[in-house]
């Protein structure tokens, strides 16, 4: 097998994985702050896709405006969901899981009532391909990967270098201690939920031109995101990036040798192996 084929496979894998990392980062951020597993996270991704479909595909606004609009709308939806529902369920994993399933159904059914069940295609804002010593990548996928990477860097800068970001990390480490030190943990958890959902919305808007949008589009990325955060470590942001890269590599290279079902199976077997050997994930705390 030639080297360029391997590089091509890795690039294909990484390209999509970066967008799924955005979903995973939101999921892991929410888990770290509220200790809940939000199964409806894929539905926030779906809303982001539909905002992009409306703003860019139907109203003809510039793509960047559509992307920003998706982030803002979905972040706002996340804040509302946290204030109305999830703040009452901090640390109650089982109940929060059921509630997130309820939210999943409500959001999917609402999307079906508004947009119908049919897939809707979103025109591509980019065209053409880039060739680089035998490796071919479409500009569209390159743009998705770069935009996702930029958002990951922005999130990192926000968490590391702003006062609010520090408060968020403190709450994730120990909510009670953070509250004692004067952190408004209610505001922080609402904001954290909003940021997490906004990232999912960004991912949905980025991938909308690649895949079509539909009310059930959130199911696949949320499962990928779960695999990513388990591999990397629940609650660990660098872990989510590492997990995404590993899953991207596995899926990119795996499709060269195996059927897609076998690649999916490998992903879950990797999850089981990581959970057994290092339950807190590769980069999770001890």
């Amino acid at each position, binding site marked *: 097998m030639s080297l360029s084929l391997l590089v091509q496979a890795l690039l294909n894998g990484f390209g999509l994985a970066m967008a799924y990392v955005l979903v995973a980062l939101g999921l892991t951020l929410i888990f770290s702050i509220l200790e809940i597993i939000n199964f409806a996270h894929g539905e926030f991704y779906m809303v982001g896709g539909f905002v992009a479909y409306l703003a860019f595909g139907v109203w003809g606004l510039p793509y960047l405006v559509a992307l920003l609009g998706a982030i803002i709308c979905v972040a706002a939806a996340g804040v509302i969901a946290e204030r109305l529902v999830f703040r009452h369920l901090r640390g109650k994993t089982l109940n929060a899981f059921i*509630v997130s399933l309820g939210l999943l159904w409500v959001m999917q059914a609402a999307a079906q009532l508004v947009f119908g069940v049919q897939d809707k295609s979103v025109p591509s804002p980019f065209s053409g391909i880039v060739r680089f010593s035998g490796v071919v990548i479409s500009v569209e996928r390159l743009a998705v990967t770069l935009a996702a990477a930029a958002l990951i860097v922005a999130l990192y800068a926000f968490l590391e270098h702003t006062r609010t970001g520090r408060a968020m990390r403190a709450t994730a480490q120990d909510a009670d201690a953070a509250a004692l030190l004067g952190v408004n943990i209610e505001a922080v958890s609402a904001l954290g939920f909003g940021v997490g959902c906004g990232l999912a919305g960004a991912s949905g808007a980025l991938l909308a031109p690649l895949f079509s949008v539909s009310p059930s589009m959130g199911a696949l990325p949320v499962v990928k995101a779960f695999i990513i955060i388990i591999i990397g470590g629940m609650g660990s942001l660098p872990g989510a990036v590492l997990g995404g890269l590993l899953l991207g590599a596995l899926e990119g290279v795996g499709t060269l040798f195996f059927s897609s079902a076998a690649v999916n199976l490998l992903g879950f077997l990797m999850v089981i192996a990581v959970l057994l050997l290092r339950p807190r994930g590769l980069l999770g705390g001890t």
Partner: protein
Amino acid sequence: MAPRHAAISPLLALGLLALAGVILPLVTGDSYYLDVATTIVMNLLLTMSLRMQISTGQLNMAHISFMGIGAYTSALLAMRAGLSFWLTLWVGALVAAAFAVPIGAIALRLTGPYYFLITFAFSEVARLIFNNFFVGLLGGPSGLVEIPPPGPLLSVAFTGKLELYCLMLGLFLLGAAILVRLEYSRFGLAAGAIRQGELLSATLGVDVLRYKLTAFVLGSAMAGIAGAFFAHSHRVLHSSDFGLEPMVQLVIFTVIGGVGSIWGPVIGTVLMTVASELMRELRHYETLVFGLVLILTMLFLPDGLVSVPSRLVRALARTRARRGAIGVDVAT
């Protein structure tokens, strides 16, 4: 030890449940109602055994996969080896239990959300295997078709809906009797202790892993029985029957009913199934209403529907206390 009256009321409840199950086909011979009732009784075996596992403190997302293992085992033995359903039913349960021993031993090393996630990963592995691997044996994406119905037993032919209902009711009552017996035994006490304080129970000499594994394996065997019944009554098997969606349905039935009581899943399963049958006409609105009900129930009744009577009693007692002792601050 549990007080004497605590052991009488569950027997009474079990008797009432059996009575209701027996009376139902006498009241209605309608085949649609019998179909719904059969599904409810099958789901009851699944949710009550799932609740028994939850009673040791953890949610097993792979419960449905053991139902699938029982279903595929029984169907394949009947189709390929020509064995009688009355044998394959129990073999299905045994095979499900046999798979549960190593899987449980591995998964139960984890706790909390990690256990939840590893069992979810196991269930996806099982579903992918049913769907994509050993296609010649398991039927692949098109599943298994033309599974033979249960053969005649004691000159009763199990082809009609009524006979199938009675069969499932019998299997369920057997399972429920075992679960009730366990709940009010040393096992039930240990499970409760583990749920409330795993570390403390371990230090007091409770073999935590043994109890959890027992619950896991026994629950899986019951799921295997439900699966074998499902295979031979539907006569068609598909991998999606054992995917995330039906599993989520079981979890919802169980948790909405309430996991704190052995009767919670019964209330949840019956009410939710009847409600969803009534709302079938609403189409997309059904999911919308269902989702909202789920969210509101969990927010306002975190212990499930089964906690409604005790909540009412407490609320009543509070108002009485307030009336009886005017001027005295009621602490609660």
